[in-house]
Structures are given as structure tokens and as C-alpha cells.
């Protein structure tokens, strides 16, 4: 039995591996859920400077980025985010001289512990937000953005769809033209600069003609299928399932608790003139937990999915 299983697994491997690389369960949720999540984490990430909140958000962003981009995320963090954080962290104490704990002097200016700590906090905030955006890039595909936009401005989303159709078509035609020109000995990619420029202009002018010419057909096809009739509806492939509902409700609940915690001052931290945070109470611990849950939500969903699959497979 086991052997048969292995054999079959081996055969479909190339396919399933590809799927696994891209697989992120959170991305398959309704765009509204994705969008609400990113609004929340990025919004909170930019506002909260409390070390606990900062580290929770960083942890969430980093794990999710790795989950989505794998090695590329690590590379991106090390090569881009980390140096940027260093610069941001280092720059602050150079210009900010507030704070009571003076560590030394640079020329006449004091170097304070508070400004260094504040710099580090700002740096982490920057890094975190950038990591979150790298996740947004992967999860919020053009379809999803268009869908969300279409909810608000239906005609705008139609224009977007047409532009997204047109751009690759236009590019492809330019490629075809330059290939064809090569066939008759007009190589656009060599010759003097002037020759190349002249040729480029010629191609662009002919492309405008081409676009106009083809748009007549497109317009015919649109009108023939009833475009312009009043009462146009907008179809989307996304379905708001019960799992989306559950995710959205928990998301909103978490957001409320975090905001309540924020209003109650749980995330308050004073950096200047000296560092001071509120007392850690039971409520603050609860807020931290909720914030952690919020930031790790996609990772949590992914892990849960993996566990479910594992269990299902072991049952088979």
C-alpha cells in the first residue's frame, strides 16, 4: 500500500511541487479579507512604537514574507531591509539630541541613549512596513485590486481590465514588428544612434495607427455584446464563503481589541526625555496576545491548513 502511494506521489511530484511553492492559503481568501488584513497591520505597524508591538509586527511580517517568497524574502531582508534599518537607526541619533541619558558627545552635540533607542524603534517600524508591503505585492494581485476598485467604481475597473488587456497586446505587436523588420534587414537594435532613433519613431507612429485600426474591431465586438446598455452588472470570480466570514469577523474583533488597547494606553511609550512605558497589566498582556494573533493570522491559517492536510493524509 505504502509503495503504491510512493509511486503515485513520485509521478505527480513536479506538478505538486510547483503548487506548493506558490501555495498560500491566506491568498485564497476573499480580497476583502486580504485587504482588511493588510490595512490593519500596515496601519498599526506605522502607528505603534511600543517595543512589544514592534517586535510582534516584525515577527509577523518576516515569517509571512518567508512563507510567501521563501529564500528571496531572506535575501531581500538581508540585502535591502536590514541595511536600510541600520541607516535609519544610525541617522536618528546624529540629528536628534533629546533625552536625558547622555552617553557621550559628538563635537558639541550630546549622544543620548533615548535617541538611539528611538532610532532603533523607527528603523524596525520601517523595516516591518516594507516587509508587509512585499507581502501585499504577492497577495494583492491585479485581479483582486481591480475587484475591490470595481466595487467602488464599476466603470473604472472595466477600463483597468481593458488597459491590462491592451498593454501586453501592444508590447507583443512591437516585438513582432521589430522581428519582422529584421527579416528585411532593418535591425532596430543596431546602426547609429540616429538611425535607431529614426526607426524607433517610425515604429511608434505606425503603432498608433495599428492601435486605432484594431480598436474599431474591439469597439464592434463590445457593442455587439451589448456594451453601453443601461444597468451593467459586474461579475467577479470571488465568493464570500463562511470561512471568509469567520476570518473577517475574527479579524475585525482583533482589530477592535487592539484599538481598544491602544486607546487605553497599552501601547503608549514615551521616548523623550526619558523612556517610560505603562505598567504591564493583565489587559495589556491580552492586547499583546491579540496583536500577535492579528499579525500572525496568515501564518496561523497556513499552519492550520498544513496540519489538516497532514492529518488527512495520515488517515488515507
Amino acid at each position, binding site marked *: 500500500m505504502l509503495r503504491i502511494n510512493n509511486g503515485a506521489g513520485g509521478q505527480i511530484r513536479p506538478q505538486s511541487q510547483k503548487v506548493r511553492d506558490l501555495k498560500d492559503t491566506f491568498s485564497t481568501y476573499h480580497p476583502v479579507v486580504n485587504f482588511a488584513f493588510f490595512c490593519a497591520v500596515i496601519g498599526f505597524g506605522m502607528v505603534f512604537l511600543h517595543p512589544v508591538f514592534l517586535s510582534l509586527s516584525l515577527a509577523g511580517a518576516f515569517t509571512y514574507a518567508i512563507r510567501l517568497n521563501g529564500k528571496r524574502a531572506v535575501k531581500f531582508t538581508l540585502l535591502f531591509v536590514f541595511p536600510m534599518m541600520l541607516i535609519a537607526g544610525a541617522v536618528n541619533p546624529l540629528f536628534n539630541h533629546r533625552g536625558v541619558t547622555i552617553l557621550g558627545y559628538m563635537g558639541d552635540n550630546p549622544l543620548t541613549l533615548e535617541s538611539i533607542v528611538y532610532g532603533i524603534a523607527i528603523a524596525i517600524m520601517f523595516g516591518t512596513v516594507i516587509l508587509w508591503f512585499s507581502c501585499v505585492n504577492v497577495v494583492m494581485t491585479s485581479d483582486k485590486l481591480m475587484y475591490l476598485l470595481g466595487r467602488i467604481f464599476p466603470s473604472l475597473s472595466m477600463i483597468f481590465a481593458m488597459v491590462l*488587456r491592451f498593454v*501586453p497586446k501592444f508590447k507583443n505587436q512591437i516585438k513582432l514588428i521589430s522581428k519582422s523588420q529584421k*527579416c*528585411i534587414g532593418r535591425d532596430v537594435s543596431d546602426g547609429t544612434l540616429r538611425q535607431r532613433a529614426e526607426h524607433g519613431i517610425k515604429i511608434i507612429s505606425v503603432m498608433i495607427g495599428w492601435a486605432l*485600426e484594431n480598436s474599431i474591431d474591439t469597439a464592434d465586438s463590445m457593442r*455587439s*455584446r451589448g456594451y453601453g*446598455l443601461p*444597468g451593467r452588472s459586474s461579475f467577479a470570480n470571488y465568493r464570500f464563503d463562511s470561512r471568509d466570514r469567520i476570518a473577517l469577523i475574527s479579524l475585525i474583533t482583533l482589530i477592535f481589541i487592539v484599538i481598544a488597547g491602544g486607546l487605553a494606553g497599552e501601547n503608549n511609550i514615551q521616548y523623550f526625555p526619558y523612556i517610560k512605558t505603562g505598567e504591564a497589566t493583565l489587559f495589556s498582556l491580552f492586547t499583546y496576545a491579540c496583536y500577535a494573533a492579528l499579525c500572525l493570522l496568515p501564518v496561523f491559517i497556513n499552519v492550520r491548513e498544513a496540519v489538516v492536510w497532514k492529518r488527512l493524509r495520515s488517515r488515507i
Partner: protein
Amino acid sequence: METFKIKDLSFTYPGRDRPALTHINLRIEYGEFVVVCGQTGCGKSTLLRNLKSILAPHGKREGEILFYDRPIESISHREQASRIGYVLQNPDNQIVTDKVWHELAFGLESLGYDTKVIRLRVAEMANFFGIQSWFMRDVSQLSGGQKQTLNLASVMAMQPDVLILDEPTAQLDPIAAADFLETVKRINREIGTTIIMIEHRLEDVFPMADRAVIMDKGKILIEDVPGRGGKVLAELNHPMLLAMPTPMQVYESLSKEKDIPLCGSPVTVREGRTWLTDMFSRRQLTNTKIDDPAEHMSSADPIIRLKDVWFRYSKDDVDVIKGLSMEASKGRLYCIVGGNGTGKTTALSVIGGINKPYRGKVLIKGESLEKQSKKHIADSLVILPQNPQTLFVEKTVSLDLMEILEQKGITPEEKQKRVEEIADLVEIRDLLESHPYDLSGGEQQRAALAKVLLAEPEILLLDEPTKGLDNYFKQRLARILKKLTENGVTIIMVSHDVEFCGKYGDVCAMFFDGNIVTTNTPKRFFSGNSFYTTAANRMSRHIFENAVTVEDVVNLCESNLNANDPGRESKRKAEQVKVQK
């Protein structure tokens, strides 16, 4: 009940004296499959466009068009949009949105259906047309055939009563075209949608159609069951006869002979085969082989030689050309046939020096291609790319033709003269002042040919030159190519068009999996294949040895029919034929 009743319809475009349509009377029954054919400019597109008000061209219209007994003008845009489906020629331009699923939903969105209904309809369409596997894709990733299927599906999603198709397969390769037509047939048979279609591929479409409408100069010439149209065309000696399926052409050419069984002309190869068998069952076969002039051709020295050429596009790709060796002699028309994606076009670009092989040699006139400069290559060799439209970069055809002469260093008068000469040769004289994009597909093909010919190449490489041409223009193209080869130009042509290569080629080669599998004279080449061959050969191969074209079959039939009276010998032969049958 008729889907359409057209009563005495005449139509004149603004600013023209001659009407595009005159006194058209036509009834199209519900559930009928009607194919409309005719030469370019006979008014068939104008007729079809008039059947849907929103697409009807501007101009003076007389007469009446009734859609289910109601005048077409009185039917609302909404009703027309959903009940009259229209598919145009160009697969690319009809697609509006960027995703397959969105395109399928487009018409339904316009009609204002809610998400639930749209989801169901879209799912139905994806199932019926086999779109599931590419449902979520970007439309830019689709092949031409898939795009046209998508266009058809997105029209069918609106559940029309009648489907109008204007040359839907003109830009598709034969296999994609056959698939597409099969789908149309299925819609007609399984859903009962009325089909009105303009089509050039009559061999494929005649067997499916209930009725053929053959138009000429704005009038309906013939309106009958597909098999019966040929007789009138033959009597009129009309050029449209050339466009008819091969068995019909053979039948009509021979029908002057009195002693052949009359049963209405055969349309499919199977019918043609049966008919030939019946005809010769009582006769002696004196001559079963046609003289092949290509066999007696003296072997000229090869001007193009490829030795074990290997090519791939990038290091990690798979090989596209695999050990290709070939020789093409001076002054010959060398045809390369073969399926899609076998590397034919790539082979052409390797011969043309655009792509460099990573192993093996390309020798042009005995010199290695690598050693020659680009300029030098361009002087002696040009390629006519598959999509002729992409060659034009100027505002008018004549400016475009002038452009190619720019670097030749000749006087403007001389240029003008040369352009006019070439325009006469390819018969585009009266199109010289038009914008290249305003020309029809066939005209563009000829203008592009003019452009490459102006470069006065010794070697001409053609990529699918017959795509989108009707049979009449194909004949013209063949004449032009013949003239060129007589003047010593070597032509290598890559094509799907088996009939054209069989009829006009000097050498035919079959391309498969990055290599040439076999090379021979067209007669030997096609009579050696049993599937990949011309319709004339498929219909006659059980009787004649090497008949490849309609003329071959007709000539052999005539020589056998004129031979002496049937005797004992012939009976024996006829028995043999029967056994073979």
C-alpha cells in the same frame, strides 16, 4: 419559422455609385447551417453586418430584413445583443478584457445579469467549449485557436438564437481551424442554434452545411445544397469554382464527358473516392501514372546548404532545430510543410541568419553564413514574415515601398518607376495611396511581397504566404513565384497549405520535430503519404499512382475515358479496383 427573412435588400456605401448589395432575397430557417462564400469584395460581409443593426455599416439601405417576422430596426439593442451572436475575423481584436473568465462574462455583465446567473452560464460555457484548463489565464497567453474559441464561447454565453460568423478561421492554422469549425457544427447540432458563416475553407465546411450561398458582385449567384452549386459555376466558368472542394472541382471538370455516373457532385473525399471507383469499375485503366516534370529537372547546384544544424533559443531551452540538413537548388520553389510548433519558422530564421545555430553550418552560395556581414546577407536574402502587417512602417503603401529603396542610392524617378513596376506585378497599383492597415488580409500579403521583392533578393524565404488568401489570389501568387524562379530566384517557403505546395512546389519537404523527415518532388512526396497529402491524392490514390492536384486527376480520368473500348483486360482491372475499394 425563419430566423431571418431578407426581402429585396439593396445597400450602397456612401459616396459609391455601384451598390454593394443588389436585390438580395434570402430566407434562413430556424436551426439551419448556412455557409456564405464568394470572392473578396462580393458583398458577403456587408450582407452579414446588415443582419445586426449595431454593426450595420452606414449607407443607403432598401428592402427589408425580418428577424422572426419583425423588422430588424424595431428590435431593441438589448434583444439584438443577446439573440444575435456575432464573431469577427480577427481573434485578437475581439477580446476586450485581460482574463479568460472575465471575457466570458463580459456580454452577460452588459445585459446586467447578477453574479449567480453569470457564474452558472460561464461555467456552462467553460464546460461545453473545454475551457476549464485555461479558465483563469491571461488572454495574452492563449494561442490563436484558443482566442477564437473564447470569442465564440463568450458570444454563446448570451444564448443567442442565431450565430453569425465572419471568416472566423482566416487567421488560424488548419488544425485549429478544423477544431473551431467542428465546435461550430456541434453548436448547430446539439443546441440547434442557427448558423450563418462566411468561410473560405469549403472543404471542411461544405459537408457540415445545409445550404451554401455563393455570392458574386453583390448578388446571390447560387443558393442551394452545397453539392449542387458546382454545376452552375462550371457552366459560367466562374473563378469561384477554384474555391470549391477538390472532389467537386474534379467532378465538374469532367461532367462534360457523357459517360460518367451522374449523382450530384461529391463533396467529401469519401464521396469523391466512391464516385471515381464507380466510374472506373466498367472501364479499362490504360494510364495510372502522370508524367512528373519535376523528375526530369536537371539538378542545379545547391545555393543553400545546411549541415547538421542545431539551434535553441537560450541555454536552458530545449532544442528547436535538431540536426537539420538540407539543400535547396537555385531557381526552385522549395516547400517545407509540417504541423504547428515543429520549428519551421525557426528553421527559416536560421537560414535567414537572424538566429545563429550553436552547432552545424549554414552555407549560402557556398559561403558560411557566419562569415558574411549582416549587410551582405540582407542584400541577397530576405524573409517575408508570417504576419505581413508588421512589415509596414509608413502612412501609405507607396511610401512604404519607397522606404525599402532608400539605401539603394538611386534617383527618385528610378524609385518611382521601380515601385510602379512591382505594384503592377503583384496587382496593387490602385492601392498605392491607401494606408497599409486599411488593406484586406490578401492585399496586405501582396503589398508585403512587393516590399520584399523590391530588395531584389536572390533568395526569398516565405513564412506562410498563403495564409488568409482565397484560392483565386493563391493562383496569382503562384504565378508571381513562378516568374521569380524562372528568373533564377530561389524560394524557400514554409506552409501549412498542402494543396498549394502540391500544386506549385518544385520540391516538398516534411518538417517534424526539428528536422526534415523526407524530401521529394511534390508528386512523389504526396503520393507517398497517406494522411498528410492533398485532397485530390486522397480521393484518387486507390486508382492512380501519383495524382496530386485536381488537374492531375482530371487529366488521368480523361485519358482513361478516351482510351479504347472496354475489353476483357479492363474487366480484370476493374475487378482489381473493386477489391481495392
